[in-house]
């Protein structure tokens, strides 16, 4: 199974290769680009990236499994990442995550059956001043309350 690379992605790849020409530096940006395109990093993508960078696929897999932001399994359309670190926990992480779990009917690490939401717990997102925080596909949502979560998730739906 080979990976189909769209024109847009091809352009991005060329850009990255130009920007970071040395060593294996392109691996991370490329993985970001592929994840943006495909939602997760599959084994095929890793091989593709290795081919682009010109290294053994083992390197790419090492990197893609090492960094927590790269999903090695398919995730839902919206990847809800709730910060569970100390500042957010002090400000009520427990209630927030319980509420989301109940609302979506899934546990942490699971995807809703319709493939829309994936819920995961992450470590500090660097938004401690707005704790508790969550990030959905790159966008931050701070000072969460159950009502606010309702609003956010409903808007996504």
């Amino acid at each position: 199974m080979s990976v189909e690379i769209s024109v847009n992605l091809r352009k991005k790849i060329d850009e990255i290769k130009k920007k970071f020409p040395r060593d294996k530096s392109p691996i991370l940006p490329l993985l970001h680009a592929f994840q943006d395109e495909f939602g997760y990093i599959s084994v095929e993508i890793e091989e593709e990236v290795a081919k682009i960078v010109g290294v053994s696929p083992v390197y790419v897999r090492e990197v893609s499994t090492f960094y927590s932001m790269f999903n090695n399994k398919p995730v839902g359309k919206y990847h809800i990442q709730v910060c569970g670190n100390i500042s957010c926990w002090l400000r009520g992480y427990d209630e927030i995550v319980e509420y989301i779990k109940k609302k979506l009917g899934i546990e942490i690490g699971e995807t809703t059956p319709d493939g829309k939401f994936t819920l995961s717990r992450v470590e500090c997102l660097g938004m401690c001043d707005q704790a508790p925080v969550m990030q959905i596909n790159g966008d931050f949502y701070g000072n969460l309350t159950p009502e606010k979560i309702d609003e956010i998730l409903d808007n996504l739906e």
Partner: protein
Amino acid sequence: MSVKILTKHFHIKDSHKIDVYISDGGYKQAERALKEMKPEEILEEVKKSNLRGRGGAGFPTGLKWSFVPKDTGKPVYLCVNSDESEPGTFKDRHIIEKDPHMLLEGIIITSYTIGAHESYIYIRGEYYPQAIRLQEAIDEAYAKGFLGENIFGTGYKLDVKIYRGAGAYICGEETALLESIEGKKGKPRLKPPFPAVVGLYNCPTVINNVETIANIPAIVEKGGEWFASLGPEKNGGTKLYAISGHVNKPGVYEHEMGYPLMKLINEDAGGVIDGLKLKAVIPGGSSVPVLRAEECDINLDYDSVAKAGSMLGSGAVIVMSEKTCMVRALQRLIHFYKDESCGQCTPCREGTGWMLKIINRIVSGNGRKEDVDTLYYIAKGILGHTVCPLGDAAAMPVMSFIDKFRDEFEYFAINKKSKVE
């Protein structure tokens, strides 16, 4: 009001736009430095300023720059560490969001000083909107000719590139950061050799925190002595204090070095929420030893905090009220370190996992009294035996939490419930 260096543009609308920045006197210092000053002069100013690294370790910046060997024939790199992942820390985000050009100006001056023609800003992967904003700022600077070939017509060349991380706390460690930029796993390197000699792509490299670099234009503008005069001895300038946790107004506050902790909590942050009593404070990001309420009467500079038995770290103050269960709080922290351990060296890899298993067991009500000692024992086994400081960072909170709140841990282990809840 005290002196503002880093936050002086924060109140201006659209402060992140280059036009706003230039109109407020931006890029003047870079231009002056490139045109009028020699690198040695700048280095001298920085050394005089007593500017210490704002990333956490507090290493004198001027000294660090001076380690870069001259005439090796290899390019020199500047890496700006914006992998701000320490729980409780969010000051760099504020700078990038609100004043990215100050950072860029600092980068230009620093690169010029150390002779770098290529600079990387390593920004953590989660800061996606911030990365976009920074990229916009860089593009603006390129358009104005402040970056690229022939800056300010001096013939000096500098490229600034953003490199996005992908979610690894360890990449905040300078050598792990370099590994990450090289496209590898963020596993810290053995030191020596230090990155100032063998760094990115085996070339001499300077790695500085965003806040450190952002201070540079002001130092160049007003001189190192002025900067040094702002704080107590050996602690120059102002500091961004990021306060979070059980306070009414969490956020970033800039003060001179040596600002009293209680004042920060009670005045700037508006006191502990719900009028509760203060229980404990972590004064410098999650990895430093915790302070009990009665120990909090200190000034926030590197040496004073160290004297109190903790560390200023990144200046991220996490406040915990009397309702906080310290066992659960430590569970959060250990979970974090277990999650973020890179797995390279044994004590940290295995020790953090083991500590988490024990504290999870205590919290789930299956604890034994000996477990508290075991936790302490493991932390001691990690401390100082690892490649990078993450091991120490994981061990220190555990040891300090148990040192200072042992009764709470033992109560939980024996009675299977929290003492405060």
